[in-house]
């Protein structure tokens, strides 16, 4: 498999501030690669370095094995879709798309057919003579994509292109972008702060935090096997407990939470008894009123504080009696649990395999992080 884009130990400093810190990754030919991270973590800076609009302070960027150091953006086989699209308002749709081809001095008829073809490809046939401000958000989006794709770049870079769209359209464009990428086969490097965009579309996702990479993996692995507490908190919803190890054997541990509950869970690395740990558990890993025959489950009681109805994504907001730890518990909408009311006491069970445990990191950040980026 050919490597289209290789980023090697790239660092970018603005005076004393390190925006991107020693980042490395490789993107294979034809894949959809996402960089996921909260706002201000250096995603745009990284993308601009790949496009050549900023020079890295240290490190190398290679495209199809060729070093890109010192090569101007107009000479690189990559194109960037800007956060706010940057369509040229002084040109109509067809002129926007033809802009790059004209700069290559391709002949007029070839340009015309290429523009026609790409407009069809992005479902905008017949829109060539429209002004860019006559288009809807989704159409402008597709013009921006067409304007880059028509140049057949080795790598297409996308900087949060769906950020400005409303929710419904964003959901729709997510699927469309993924389909488009599969159809044209161009390598996409996509950056976003929206984990759902990254998970839905990507072959691989790199999770970035404060200029460094936390984990690069498939969406499934990021979700089920986070390697760092940050990934566990940032990708998908998670419940967390602080506690201490009571006993540890290989990758199985028994821990006691600060509230006094005892759970068995798997652990990434063995830790000595007494070590402080953070335990993470997905809302859907918690079973409501599990069958008594399932003996291997961790069991505990909670009081229902609220029912957060959201269709297929409905949750119970609950807390163990006499504590203020808030837990999110998935509430399947199969009518089986319709009897649960506010302030009910219910039993929760979870399998030791679905918990993830990390050595405790300073500061208890919990859900606040996710609210900041929203």
């Amino acid at each position, binding site marked *: 498999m050919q490597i289209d884009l290789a980023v090697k130990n790239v660092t970018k400093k603005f005076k004393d501030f390190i925006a991107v810190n020693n980042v490395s990754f490789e993107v294979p030919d034809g894949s959809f690669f996402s960089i996921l991270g909260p706002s201000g973590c250096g995603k745009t800076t990284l993308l601009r370095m790949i496009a050549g*609009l900023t020079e890295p302070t240290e490190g190398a960027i290679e495209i199809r094995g060729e070093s890109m150091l010192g090569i101007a953006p*107009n000479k690189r086989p990559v194109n*960037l879709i800007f956060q706010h699209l*940057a369509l*040229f308002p*002084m040109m109509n749709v067809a002129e926007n798309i033809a*802009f*790059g081809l004209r*700069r290559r001095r391709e002949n007029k008829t070839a340009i015309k057919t290429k523009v026609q073809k790409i407009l069809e490809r992005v479902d905008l046939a017949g829109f060539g003579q429209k002004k860019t401000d006559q288009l809807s958000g989704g159409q402008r989006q597709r013009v921006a994509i067409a304007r880059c794709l028509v140049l057949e770049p080795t790598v297409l870079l996308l900087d949060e292109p769906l950020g400005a769209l409303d929710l419904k359209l964003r959901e729709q464009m997510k699927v469309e972008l993924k389909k488009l990428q599969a159809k044209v086969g161009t390598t996409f490097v996509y950056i976003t702060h929206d984990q759902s965009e990254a998970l839905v579309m990507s072959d691989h996702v790199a999770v970035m935090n404060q200029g460094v990479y936390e984990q690069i993996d498939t969406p499934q692995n990021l979700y089920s096997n986070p390697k760092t507490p940050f990934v566990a908190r940032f990708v998908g919803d998670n419940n967390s407990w602080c506690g201490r190890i009571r006993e540890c054997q290989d990758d199985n541990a028994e821990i006691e939470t600060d509230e006094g509950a005892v759970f068995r869970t798997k652990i990434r690395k063995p830790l000595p008894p007494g070590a402080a740990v953070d335990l993470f558990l997905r809302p859907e890993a918690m079973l409501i009123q599990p069958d008594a025959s399932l003996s291997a489950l961790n069991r505990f009681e909670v009081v229902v504080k609220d029912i957060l109805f959201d269709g297929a994504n409905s949750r119970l907001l609950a807390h163990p009696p006499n504590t203020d730890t808030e837990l999110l518990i998935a509430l399947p909408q199969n009518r089986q649990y319709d009897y649960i009311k506010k302030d009910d006491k219910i039993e929760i069970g979870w399998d030791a395999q679905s918990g993830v445990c990390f050595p405790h990191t300073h500061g208890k950040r919990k859900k606040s992080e996710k609210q900041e980026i929203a």
Partner: protein
Amino acid sequence: MKNQKRWVLWFFLSPVLLWLVLLIVLPQIDLLTMSFHVENDDGRMVWSFANYLTFFQEPIYWLTFVRTAVYSILVTFLTFIIALPIAFYITKVAAPKFQGFLMMLLLLPFWVSELVRVYGWMILLRESGVINHFLIKLGLLNKPVEMLYNDATMIMGLVYTSMLFMVIPIVSVLESLDNSLIEAAYDLGADMWSILVKIIIPHAIPGIVSGSIVVFMLTLGNYLTPNLMGGKNSLWFTEQIYNQFIASFNWNQGAAFGFLLLVLSSLVIWIGLKLTKQNLKKVVQ
């Protein structure tokens, strides 16, 4: 109710209308009628085209006229060529905290009157002036040269005087130019020249046109700079008008010249707007 509204409107409009009529329209009409009158043999004023005929029959008049027009266009163009990079530097390259300072530098010469500014140039450039003095001291010249009183110096002076009026409108349009458009063009394969021609100038055209109109009109109507820096051989049409009014005391001829200048500037601006596909309403905004 409706009547009352109208009354209020007239009340507030009347000073403006008064100003327009008394200070602009009336004198102009007076000048216009004056320009179509000549004194006949009996010393009475009669209607005639003679003033305009004189203009076309005397080469010195229409040559000065054409020269003034061509030089004004040249000055406008040169001012634009110099102002565009300056405006670009101020808005897009300089650090934000220096922008105010740079604008200040541009404004500074305008704190003194045009007369003082022109004399400043004369002190620098004349035969016994500062520049000659230094060139001789440095051994680059062995006898002083006269740098004043030629067309090149005059044009330089006019460009210098006009610079601010071109830079400010261009700065204000460039401020509204999204940097990412420039970067997007660069990313799509454009070189600096195509970015300038395809992105920056099309975006800045309203500012360029309004700056050009102001600079053209100011240059065309300038009297001081051509008079003081241009010397004997570089007559400006305003000097001809001045001569008629003041030296020859021929107000009728002067009025005719004044109108010709007005027609010229309107015509050139109209052609300019047509060529750049702008309309006046958009440009003066």
